């Protein structure tokens, strides 16, 4: 086609000129390029939402609101990032909500004991965090054992731990929250550096590291390999069972860390803290462009998906919309994102 004169074609966004000499196939339009990259699309949607909310109520543009959005985003981002690893392998971890709760509750008990014994706040919080992550790793191990040895599919295995975890949390606490930890805990969840609170800062660092881990490190490559074709992965020498176990333990650890973040927000370990969070995490991952079949995901997309969800929730409150509508809008987003991902997959196969 080189050498032919430019052909004017109409696209939905206006007239597009073909620069001479460039074959049609190699020049996707700007909208297509944005749509082709879920992450950039999400940035666009988030910006649109921010503008929309800000226009409807200018107070949306304040540091306080931004701070709140990030405080809400932090635990969601953590469990969504853990969930991303799992979904890349073609599995799913439904237990993260309960893992969050159980970790939060057990860490709360530990911290109450230490504070009661007079230990300094900083040390108590550090140990509490380790306890929470440890419990998360424990639940992840149970998931891995159910999948690798009991031969349960991930959906069923993590569904079982979801239910058991929630039950354990209620049994341990008797239904009420576990307080008595370091008194400075709730203060740590408050934004201090502009809109950034300590949890937000730490989560940003953690998810960036996780992103590098998934997309650059060998661990990540193995994860994608298993998700793409587990058979081929085994054939190329990857110990799939071991790796899968690591991924579920990792997911559990992220959920445990999120449990600690919620502890800071509430000032106590609540047996209802993580209720329903697994669906929000999966929504963030799907909106971020992952394929539930495995092999395709993007930590950047996940992080933006989580940000989109928390921006939406906060924005709807700021413009004083009834809370019920939140779920409907989120559902539309998930459907749109999943549809895009499917189309992108068909697109790739055709080209």
């Amino acid at each position, binding site marked *: 086609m080189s050498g032919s004169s430019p052909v004017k074609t109409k696209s939905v966004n206006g007239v597009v000129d073909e620069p001479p000499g460039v074959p049609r196939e190699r020049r996707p339009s700007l909208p297509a390029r944005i749509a082709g990259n879920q992450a950039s699309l999400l940035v666009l949607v988030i910006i649109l939402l921010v503008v929309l909310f800000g226009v409807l109520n200018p107070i949306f543009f304040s540091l306080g609101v931004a701070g709140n959005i990030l405080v809400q985003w932090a635990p969601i981002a953590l469990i969504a990032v853990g969930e991303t690893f799992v979904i890349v392998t073609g599995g799913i971890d439904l237990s993260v909500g309960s893992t969050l709760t159980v970790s939060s509750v057990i860490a709360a008990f530990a911290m109450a004991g230490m504070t009661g014994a007079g230990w300094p706040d900083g040390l108590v919080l550090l140990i509490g965090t380790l306890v929470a992550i440890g419990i998360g790793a424990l639940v992840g191990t149970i998931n891995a054992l159910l999948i690798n040895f009991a031969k349960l599919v991930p959906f069923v295995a993590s569904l079982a731990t979801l239910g058991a975890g929630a039950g354990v949390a209620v049994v341990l606490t008797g239904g009420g929250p576990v307080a008595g930890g370091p008194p400075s805990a709730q203060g740590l969840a408050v934004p201090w550096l502009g809109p950034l609170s300590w949890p937000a800062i730490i989560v940003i660092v953690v998810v960036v590291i996780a992103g590098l881990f998934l997309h650059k490190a060998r661990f990540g490559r193995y994860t994608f390999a298993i998700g793409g074709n587990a058979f081929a992965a085994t054939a190329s020498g990857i110990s799939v069972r071991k790796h899968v176990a690591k991924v579920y333990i990792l997911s559990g650890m992220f959920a445990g860390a999120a449990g600690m973040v919620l502890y800071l927000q509430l*000032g106590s370990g609540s047996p209802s803290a993580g209720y329903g969070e697994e669906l929000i995490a999966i929504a963030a991952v799907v909106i971020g462009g992952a394929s539930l079949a495995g092999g395709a995901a993007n930590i950047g997309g996940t992080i933006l998906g989580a940000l989109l969800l928390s921006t939406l929730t906060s924005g709807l409150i700021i413009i004083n919309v009834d809370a019920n509508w939140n779920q409907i*809008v989120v559902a539309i987003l998930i459907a749109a994102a999943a549809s895009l991902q499917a189309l992108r997959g068909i697109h790739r196969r055709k080209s």
Partner: protein
Amino acid sequence: MSNRTASKTWARRVVTVTSVAALAALGLTACSSATSGGTGSGKKSYTLGFVVGASSDPFFQAMKVGAQKEADKLGDKLIFQGNATTYSPATQIPIVNQVLALNPDGLALAPTDPTALQSLVNTANSKGIAVVNVDSQVSDLSKVISFITGDNNDGGEKAADTMAKAIGYKDGGSYQVVVGLTSATASTNVARLDGFKKQIAAKYPGIKIVATGYSQSNSTTANTNINNWLTEFPKLNGIFAIDGTNATGAAAALQSKGLTGKVALIGYDAYKTNVDLIGKGVFTALIAQNPAQEGKDAVDTLDKYLRAGKKATGIDKSVTLPNIVLSKDTSAADLQKYTYVQNG
């Protein structure tokens, strides 16, 4: 189709869906944001936040009606928010944070947990936002200009009296009851259970509470709890459903097992659907609060305080509204009067 056409179609779909979502959000504000109070009267209009537990609970819906009416009357703007379905501090705290970020002049709060919400009340105070507590309270009431609630202790006692009468209590007899609550932390639930237990210990020692459970304002959870108890305790004499959602779940459980009239059911909160069931014998009695009045009083108190230049003169630090027992013997007029009003 060619790559470019496919990309265009796809981009088109993206734009469509995004616009739909955006328009939906815009449309929703038009439908559901509170009408701004009457302007042009020359009076200053205050912005009042009002955050409850589970906003779908008819108790809180009635509270919203009462609060909105009063706000409209006084010319104030009301921002009424609350998680749609779950009564818990984990869901309430982010909402309170966002409402506080709007810098309202005052905040009416029905805290789902007395300690978890305390720091937010403190934050509000430090920002100069006046706070009242409605229905339930935070632990430190010194930060709160007024606490408006129903008399929960008394309600629990009245429930015990009604329960004893309904099961035909005789001294020396042994009776089993279960108690369904919404939350282990809501001060309302705690106070009602306290009142119930104290009255039983004092006057009806033969009654034993064999089980308690929590449902977080979810009637389905309440229903499951009570179904299980009905199976576990075949000789169960009575159920005390400590809030409206438990009452709904309990009524459904009794009806589905055909135990209407055989197990006494004392419920709380006069939801219209449950009030109708008194006549059908499903409920022995319902203990009605007055949430519309509580909402009205909360808005009124905040407005008075702000208009007086943030002075607490003439403001009751604690307002306790009496509970009413609704039963077969209550007049139709009274039943109508105390049924919780719903949004039109």
